[in-house]
C-alpha cells in the first residue's frame, strides 16, 4: 500500500501515545485507591488496602450503590421492553414515519444531557411529581432505549424474516413464533443491549442531577463528596469500583454483539453520560 516504512512507524508511535494518553489517568486513579496515606499529593507515600475496608463500611456508599443498582436494573428492564418493541416495528414493517422512529429513539442521547435533564425536571416541577427513584428511572430508561434498539435492530437486519414466515406457515401462533424462532436469534443482542444500558445508567450523572432530588446514586455520591477532602480516599476506592462495573459489561457486550456493533458510533454514543 501507500504507507512508507517511516509513515508506518510514525503511525504506530502516534497510536501508542494516544493509548497512553487515554489509559494513564485511569491507571492513576486505580493506583490512588491503594494509597496508604490520606493526602492526594504525588508521589503517594506507599500502598495499602485500608481504604477498601473503609469504603465497604461506609453506609453512604452502600445506600448509593443500592440505589444505583435498583435504578439501573429498572431502567434496563424498561429499555429492553421498549427498545425491542421499537426495533421489531422498524426492522419488520414498512410504514410511514419509520425514519422518524429511529430519529425519536436517538434524540435523547443526541441532544446535550443538560437539555434532557432540564426538560424532565421542568416537567416534574410543573406536574408536581416528587423527585426520587421513579423519576431517575424514567430519565435513564429514556436514553437507554437507544442502546437496546441499536443492538436489536442490527441483529434483526442480519436474520431472515423467512424463518418467522416459515414458522407461521407451519402453524405456530405469533407468540410461539416469537418465543421459539425470533427470541433465540435475538438473545445475545438483547443481552448485549441490556449490559450496555445497565452500564450507561450505572454511571450517568448529568440527567440524574436534575431528576434525583435528595436520593443519591453512586455517581451523585461521588460528586457530592469531591468537595470533602477527608472523604477523598474513599472516593478513590469507589471510583475504581465504578470503572470496573461500567467497563466489564461493555467488554462482555462487545464480545456478544460482535465486531460490527462495536464499530457503529451511535451504538456507543451514550457512553459519556
Amino acid at each position, binding site marked *: 500500500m501507500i504507507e512508507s516504512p517511516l509513515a508506518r512507524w510514525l503511525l504506530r508511535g502516534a497510536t501508542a501515545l494516544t493509548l497512553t494518553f487515554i489509559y494513564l489517568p485511569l491507571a492513576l486513579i486505580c493506583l490512588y485507591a491503594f494509597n496508604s496515606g490520606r493526602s492526594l499529593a504525588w508521589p503517594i507515600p506507599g500502598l495499602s488496602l485500608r481504604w477498601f475496608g473503609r469504603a465497604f463500611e461506609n453506609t453512604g456508599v452502600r445506600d448509593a450503590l443500592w440505589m444505583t443498582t435498583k435504578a439501573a436494573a429498572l431502567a434496563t428492564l424498561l429499555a429492553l421492553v421498549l427498545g425491542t418493541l421499537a426495533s421489531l416495528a422498524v426492522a419488520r414493517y414498512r410504514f410511514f414515519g419509520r425514519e422518524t*422512529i429511529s430519529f425519536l429513539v436517538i434524540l435523547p442521547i443526541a441532544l446535550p444531557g443538560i437539555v434532557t435533564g432540564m426538560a424532565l425536571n421542568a416537567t416534574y416541577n410543573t406536574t408536581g411529581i416528587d423527585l426520587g427513584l421513579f423519576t431517575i428511572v424514567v430519565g435513564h430508561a429514556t436514553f437507554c432505549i437507544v442502546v437496546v434498539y441499536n443492538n436489536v435492530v442490527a441483529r434483526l437486519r442480519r436474520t431472515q424474516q423467512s424463518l418467522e414466515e416459515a414458522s407461521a406457515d407451519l402453524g405456530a401462533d405469533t407468540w410461539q413464533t416469537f418465543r421459539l424462532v425470533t427470541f433465540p436469534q435475538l438473545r445475545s443482542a438483547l443481552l448485549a443491549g441490556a449490559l450496555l444500558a445497565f452500564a450507561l445508567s450505572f454511571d450517568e450523572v448529568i440527567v440524574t442531577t436534575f431528576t434525583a432530588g435528595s436520593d443519591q446514586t453512586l455517581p451523585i455520591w461521588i460528586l457530592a463528596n469531591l468537595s470533602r477532602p477527608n472523604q477523598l480516599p474513599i472516593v478513590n476506592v469507589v471510583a475504581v469500583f465504578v470503572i470496573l462495573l461500567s467497563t466489564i459489561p461493555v467488554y462482555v457486550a462487545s464480545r456478544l454483539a460482535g465486531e460490527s456493533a462495536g*464499530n457503529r458510533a451511535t451504538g456507543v454514543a451514550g457512553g459519556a453520560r
Partner: protein
Amino acid sequence: MTSVPEVTEAPSREGAGRRLSSFLHRHPRLRLSLLLSGPVGWLVIAYLGSLAVLLVAAFWRLDPFTSEIVHEYGIDNFRTLWERDVYRTIAFRTIGIAAAVTITDALLAFPIAYYMAKVASRRTRRILVVAILMPLWASYLVKVYAWRIILQENGVLNWALDPIGLTGPGFGNVATWLVFSYLWLPFMILPIYAGLERIPDSLLEASSDLGGRAGRTFLRVVLPLAFPAVVAGSIFTFSLTLGDYITPQIVSSTQFIGNVVYINVGVANNLPLAAAFATVPIAVMVLYLLGARRAGAFDEL
C-alpha cells in the same frame, strides 16, 4: 369478511390466545400499532412532552418580588440573556471551547484511526477497537476526577514538569479544554476509523499507480472521503461539550451554559431563565446538525 370460519378451523388447544394470535396475524397494521404504542408513547409523552414544557417555560417569567413563576408569555428571558454581558461571555466561551475541543480531537484521532483502519492486522485492529471502546464507557465522573488529581497544585503533572522548569496549566479554561478533549476523544476515533475502513485499498493503490505520492494521495483521496466521518465524530464532541457542566465545575471556576442552567434550576429557582438559556445549545446543535447533514455525516453515524 368475518373471522368465524377460521376460528372453528383453528385447533381449540389454546382457545382465546390462539384466536387472538390468528386475528393479529391477519391484521399486520394492528400488530404494528401494538408494537409501536409502547415505545412511541413513552418517547412522545416522557421525552417530547418534556422538551415541549421546556420550550414553553422559556417564555414564562419570574415575579421579581415573590419569586413565583408567572405563566405569562414574553421574551424577557431572552432579552436578559442577550443584554447581560456575563451571559453572552458564557455562551461564547462554551461554544468557543466546544469548537477548540472538536478540532483538537479531530487532529488527535486521525493518526490512530488511520493506523487501526489501514495499517494494523485484523487481530490488532479488533484489540484496538475494544481498547478504545472500554474507556469510553468508563465512568465519566471518575475520568474528570482523575484529571483533577493530575492537574492539582501538588499533582503528578507538576511533579513531572518540575525537573524541566515548567508548571502545568492548573485549573481554568485550559484545563477544561484539555479534559473535554480527553473525555470525547474515543467518540471521534470510532467514526473516523469506521469511515477510513470503508475506503477501498484499491483506491489508494490506484492513486499511487497514477503517480500520486503519499502526501498527495492523503490530501486528495483519503481526506475528502474521510471528511463526513470526521463531521460525524464532531457532532459528539461538539454536542457533549455544549451540554456539559460537571467538568467546568470540577477543573475550573469559570462557567459554562450548563452551569448557569443548573444554578437557575436548583439554587436560584428561576426555571424560565434556565429554560431560555438551555435553548441556546439546542439551537446551536440544530444548526450544526443541518450543516452536518449537508456534509453527508449522517451516513457515518
